C-alpha cells in the first residue's frame, strides 16, 4: 500500500479557495501546538490576537496602518515575481526612497504641501527605482543573480541611511538620538479620521487598481506575463527582455521607494534608526500568499498585519517573544505553499494488484 500522486490538469477555482483556507487553518493548529508547548493556552492567545487587532476602532486603524506598507511593497515585488525575477530587496529600496524624501525636505523645503509631497514622491520613486534597476541591469547584462544583488543592496541601503542619521543629518536637538529633524508641516501626509491612518491608503487603493489594469489589460502587462512564462518565447516574439527586466525592476523599486516615503511622511515625520520594521521581507510572503494578485494582496496584507499587531499584544499580555508573530507568518506560508501540492496533484491510495509484492519478490530480480 502506497500513496501515489498524479498530475492534475486544472484545479477549479473553488478548490483553490477551499484548499487555501484549509491549510491556513492547519497552520493555526500547528501554531496552537507551539503555543501550548510554551505554556500558553492557544485559544486565549488567538482571542488576544483577534481582540488586539480588530477589537476597537483604534485597534482596527492600527492594523490598517501596518497593513499599508505591507500591501504596497507586496504589489511592488509581485510585479517582479510574475516575470520570475526575484527581487528580495524591497526593504532597501524603501529605505532609499525614505532617504531621498528626507533629502528633498532638507534641501528643497517648499511651503505648498502639494508641491512638497509630489517632489518627495518623485524623488523617492526614482531613488528606489534606480536602486532596484541596478540589480535588474546586472542581471540581464552579465547574468548576475538578482537574489544576491538585491539582498546585498539592502545592507548598503541600511548603512547609507545610518550614515546620514548618525552623521550629517542628525537632529542637534535630539539629545544624541539617531534621527533627523522633524519634517516641516507641508512634508507630512495628512492623516484621516483622527487616526494614524494617512493618505497613503488612497495611494494604495489607486495603485492596486492601476496594477491590476496594467497586468490584465495592457500590452506591457501581457509582455511581462509572457516573459515570465517563457523568456525564450518572448524573445522569439520580438519582445525586448533586457528592457523588460530593467523596466519591471525600476517600477518595482519605485513603488517600494514610494512606500518608504509614505511611511516617513505619514507616520514618524522624520527618519529614525530602524524605522522600516522588516516590511520588505514580510511583503514577500504577502505577495505569494495572494497568488501575485494586487487586489488579493490588500486582503492578505490586512490579515498579516493583524498577526503583527496581535504578536505585539501577545508579547505584552502573555510574555511571549515578539518573534512568535514571525513564527505564525512562517507557518502560514509553509502550509499554504504545501497545500499547493494538492492543487497540482491528485493523491490517491495505491493498493496495487492483489498478489503484487510476492510476484515482485520472486521474479523481478531473476532476469538478466
Amino acid at each position, binding site marked *: 500500500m502506497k500513496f501515489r500522486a498524479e498530475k492534475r490538469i486544472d484545479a477549479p477555482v473553488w478548490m483553490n479557495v477551499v484548499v487555501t483556507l484549509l491549510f491556513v487553518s492547519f497552520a493555526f493548529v500547528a501554531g496552537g501546538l507551539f503555543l501550548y508547548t510554551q505554556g500558553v493556552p492557544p485559544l486565549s492567545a488567538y482571542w488576544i490576537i483577534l481582540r488586539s487587532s480588530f477589537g476597537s476602532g483604534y485597534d482596527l486603524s492600527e492594523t490598517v496602518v501596518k497593513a499599508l506598507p505591507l500591501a504596497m511593497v507586496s504589489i511592488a515585488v509581485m510585479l517582479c515575481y510574475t516575470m520570475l525575477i526575484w527581487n528580495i530587496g524591497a526593504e532597501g529600496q524603501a529605505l532609499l526612497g525614505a532617504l531621498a524624501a528626507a533629502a528633498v525636505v532638507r534641501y528643497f523645503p517648499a511651503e505648498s504641501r502639494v508641491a512638497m509631497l509630489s517632489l518627495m514622491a518623485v524623488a523617492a520613486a526614482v531613488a528606489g527605482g534606480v536602486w532596484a534597476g541596478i540589480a535588474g541591469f546586472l542581471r540581464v547584462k552579465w547574468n548576475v543573480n538578482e537574489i544576491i544583488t538585491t539582498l546585498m543592496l539592502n545592507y548598503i541601503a541600511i548603512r547609507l541611511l545610518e550614515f546620514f542619521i548618525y552623521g550629517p543629518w542628525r537632529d542637534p536637538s535630539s539629545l544624541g538620538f539617531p534621527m533627523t529633524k522633524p519634517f516641516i508641516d507641508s512634508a507630512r501626509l495628512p492623516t484621516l479620521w483622527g487616526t494614524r491612518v494617512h493618505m497613503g491608503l488612497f495611494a494604495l487603493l489607486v495603485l492596486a487598481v492601476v496594477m491590476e489594469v496594467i497586468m490584465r489589460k495592457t*500590452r506591457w502587462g501581457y509582455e511581462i506575463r509572457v516573459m515570465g512564462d517563457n523568456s525564450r518565447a518572448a524573445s522569439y516574439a520580438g519582445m525586448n527582455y533586457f528592457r523588460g527586466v530593467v523596466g519591471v525592476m525600476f517600477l518595482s523599486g519605485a513603488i517600494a521607494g514610494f512606500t518608504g516615503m509614505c511611511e516617513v511622511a505619514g507616520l514618524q515625520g522624520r527618519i529614525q534608526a530602524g524605522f522600516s520594521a522588516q516590511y520588505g521581507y514580510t511583503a514577500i510572503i504577502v505577495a505569494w500568499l495572494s497568488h501575485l494578485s494586487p487586489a488579493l494582496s490588500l486582503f492578505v496584507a490586512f490579515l498579516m498585519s493583524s498577526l503583527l499587531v496581535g504578536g505585539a499584544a501577545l508579547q505584552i499580555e502573555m510574555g511571549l517573544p515578539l518573534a512568535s508573530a514571525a513564527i505564525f507568518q512562517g507557518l502560514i506560508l509553509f502550509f499554504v505553499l504545501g497545500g499547493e501540492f494538492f492543487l497540482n496533484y491528485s493523491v490517491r491510495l495505491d493498493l496495487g494488484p492483489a498478489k503484487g509484492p510476492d510476484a515482485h519478490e520472486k*521474479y*523481478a530480480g531473476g532476469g538478466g
Partner: protein
Amino acid sequence: MTEGRGAVPLVEMRGITKRFSGVTANRDVNFSVEAGEVHALLGENGAGKSTLMNILYGLYRPDEGRIFLDGKPVIFRTPRDAIAAGIGMVHQHFMLVHTHTVWENMILGVKDTPFVLPKKKIINRIAEISGHYGLQIDPSAMVWQLSTGEQQRVALLQMLYRNVRVLILDEPTAVLTPQESVRLFETIRRMSGEGHGVVFISHKMREVMSETHKVTALRRGENAGTVATSETTEEALAEMMMGRKVTLDVNRSRLNAGKTLFEVRNIRVLGDRGVEAVSEVSFSIKQNEILGLAGVAGNGQQELCEALVGLRPLLSGEIKMNGCRMEGSSPRRFIREGIYYIPSDRKGVGMASGMDIVSNSIIKKYWSKPVGHGAFIDWRNSAACAKRIIEDFDVSAPSLHTPVRNLSGGNLQKLLMGRELSEAPKVLIVMHPTWGLDVSATRYVREQLLAARENGSATLLISEDLDELLALSDRLAVMFKGKFMGLLDDPASVPTEKIGLLMAGAPVEAA
C-alpha cells in the same frame, strides 16, 4: 535463449488497461514479443504506444492486466525492476549524463558496481559488447562530444551492458542519417538473431515493412490488430492504425517560382559554445518555392534559423529581404517584414506554454491593430483571432482558455503553424515541422506548407526526414558541420544514397 517462435513468448502483456485522470490511455491491450522477433508498434500520437511501453519498462503501473516474462507473472515498480528482469528501453531523448564519459554512463544505476570503479574491466566489457554488435564507440569520450547517432549507440550499449533480453526502441531512426539507420538495423538483426526480442516504435512505414517480423497497431488505446509483416502492406497498416482508408502522399503541384525574395550571403554565426556553428552559408529563396535543408540535427541548422530571424547575431555576411539589408535588425523588424519562424522546440521557444490559447495566438501581433489598441490589448479581438486559427487549422482544444501545455503534440503544432501561417508570411522558416507527429497530423502539416507555397511564401524547410524533404522541396541543400555541402536543383531525381553521403560530410564530387 533459443526457444522457437510460437513457443512461450519472451514477454507478454495481457489485458493492460491504464487510465489517467479519466482518460483511458490503454484499454485491454494484449501485446507480446517472442525471442528473436523484431516487433513494430504503430499508432497515431495519443494512441497509447508510449504508455504501453512505459508500463512494460516499469515507469507506470497498469490499472488492470498483467505482464508475463517467460510465462511467469511479474510486476515492475520501477525501470530498475524491468531492467533487472531483462527489459530495456532506449528513449527518443537519451537518458545520458552529458558531462560524463561513455564508460561512466554505462554503470549508472548498475547495482553491484564496486565502490572503487574497476575502470579497465568496464572498458573491456564495453569493447567486447560493441565489437560483437557493431556499435563502435570510444569508451573514454565525453557524451556531450558525441553526435546524436553516437549517443544513441551509447544508450543501446547501456542496455546491452545490463544484459537485457527485450529492447524497446522509441523512434530510433528519427535522429539518424540514412547510413546510420542502416547500421542500426544491422545491430538490430544481430540482436534478434541471438534470440533477443526488439520492440520497434516508428512512424516510418518503409522501415517497418523492411525491418520487422510482426506489426501491432494501436488505435485509441486499443490493439487494432497484430499481423505478420510479410502478409501486409503499407496501406493496410495505415488503415489499421487510422480505422479508415488514408492516402499517405501529398500532392505537390507544378509551380513557377516567382522573384527572389530572401537572400543570404556568406553568413557566419557563432553557436552557444562560442564555436562557429554556421560558416559562409549563402542561398536565396524565391516566392512560391520551398528550399529543403537536409542534415543531421546539430550541424548548425538551429543556429542558422535563429540568425535568419534576428535571434542570433551574425559574425559577418548579409541577409536581404526584398533587396533590403536585414542584418543587425531586431527580431521584431523581421516579423514586421513578414519573416515568420516555426521553431522545432514548440513548447520551449514557440509558445508560452503556461498561458492560454488566446494569449499565445496574439504573441506576434499584440502590438498592432486590431489586437493591440494603443497601450492596451483588445481581448475580445484576441479571442476572435484565436478562434479563427482554431477553426481554420483544425485544432481541437477544450476551450480558448486552455493552457497551451495541455494540448497534445499534434494540436500544439497545428496551433503554432496556424498562428504563423494565418499572417500570410512572405518568408517562412520551418524547422522539423512533423517531428513526433502522427500520420494524419504530419499529412496535415505538409499540406499546409504546400498551401503556403501556393500562396506565394518563400519557405526554408529544415528537416531530418528525407522522405519529407523530397516530397515537399523544389530545391534541396545539405548541411554538414555548418557548411552547405551542395544545392540540388531537382532533388527527386537524385539517389537517396548520394544525399546521405552529403549529410555525412562527403564532398560533392565523391558523392
